[in-house]
């Protein structure tokens, strides 16, 4: 495969799968923060946070 095809492969993977991993990472960190907050104060997070 030509170098340009490899570069587009890296470009596509970085934006799509890198972006996806970044967004999921944010969501997971937020979930952990919410879990910690609800452990400290049981009324802080309810079912509506889903």
């Amino acid at each position, binding site marked *: 495969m030509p170098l340009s095809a490899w570069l587009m492969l890296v470009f596509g993977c970085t934006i*799509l799968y890198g972006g996806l991993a970044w967004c999921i990472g944010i969501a997971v960190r937020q979930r952990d923060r919410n879990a910690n907050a609800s452990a400290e104060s049981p009324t802080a997070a309810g079912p509506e946070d889903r």
Partner: protein
Amino acid sequence: MAEAREQWHSRAAFIMAAVGSAVGLGNVWRFPYVAYSSGGGAFLIPYFVALFTAGIPLLILEMGLGQRLQRGAPLAFGAIRKPLQWFGWWVAGLSAAIVIYYTTILAWSWTYLWHALTQAWGDQPETFFFETVLRRSEGPGEIGWPVGPLVIGMALTWLLIYLILRKGVRSVSKVVMVTVPLPMLLLAVLLVRGLTLPGAIDGIRYYLTPDFSMLTDWRIWLKAYGQIFFSLSLASGVMIGYGSYLGKKAEVTNSALITGLANCGTSFFAGFVVFSMLGYLANVQGVAVPDVTTSGSGLAFVTFPTAISQLPALNALFGVIFFVTLLTLGIDSAFALQEAFTTGFHDKWGVHPEKLARVFVLIAFPISLIFVTRGGYFWFDIVDKWICDFGLVISGLAQCLIVGFLYRVREFRDYLNEQSEVRLGNWWIWALRYVTPGVLSVILVANLLEEIKVGYGGYPRWATLIGGWGTVLLWGVLGFVLWRRPQNSDRVNARGED
């Protein structure tokens, strides 16, 4: 007193359902061909621009609107301006029309799943598809009777949809945990098989090698916007309906980003599966990859079966895997579309999800049989063309203008930002007000001009008038009737509306 609105089991269930709805057959049979024929790897540039300036902004709009107003499309638009409930019913009606003809592809897939065990298509898969499976007539005027095996496939599809939707989002929350990851896994199996075949790398070279000169052609950019728009299940009310089952404090923006990226990531991935197989097929037949490259039903039911027959071993197994992949990809989109329509009935008249699912399936199943008659293929083609090229484009355009100019959009953005993990800036408002409507207007005018000048597919005018414009306009009339029917008094009180 109306009961509390159902909610998704978890945020993961909502995202899975949204991804399942967005990821469909088009990711496998349309994107790879569009990318290959529009500059190869270079197509990724307009594709990503379209994703971030139109796809994801509209996805955020739809999910956010449903979440904020806690209603499906009809009542959500009705809450912005009362007469817009009519528009909301029309949008939901489009999703009902889509699910009725979309099930046809699933009926074909069921039939092929059976034939895959023996590769019954032999060495003439095209003749097998059109003459043996579809028993296609000469034209739309020659309808004939429904084809027996396809009726069975259709019945199985509707039965599955009923079973999945009978408990509303509670059952959907569970089903998507299987039906969304399963096709990804099966695609991965097909990719491993494809990459180990001779000639696979030639196919992938055709898929990825960029032709940057094509980026100066405005039609390529239009194609990228069209691909993003249709691929994300936008403008049919699905995401508004799904968003309406989120809690009032639920996060929307990052969920929309995850949905959009997962959908496009699946398309990109599917391109490797398709082109590795096409490379192998070209290698076996001693022709160039472009000679075997195709898209749509031709790819799924003619080219891929040919490639499966030519595999060195385990042909039946890989045939079954491929058609199970198609079925699992399609079923999520199908029940999401039905849910988008029936949510309006639940919101307005409090109809129970089980009754909604049962009544809809009992009405839709007989109607869908039109598409498995001998002339059904032509009607399927016409209805699909009009719903996608006119119905959904008009719906998307109107949604952007309604929310962009009639619904305090800055306040809406601030509302989303309050509970969001990713903050929206002014770019989102610009995308909704100007970029997406601008591009959709160009697509709509181009489609209209083409239809007026050359017609579509060589079909007679009466057929496109009935199947095409008739379907789109019929939902305008039915939408008006549904809008004018009074809301149940307990629903009125519960929402504090008149």
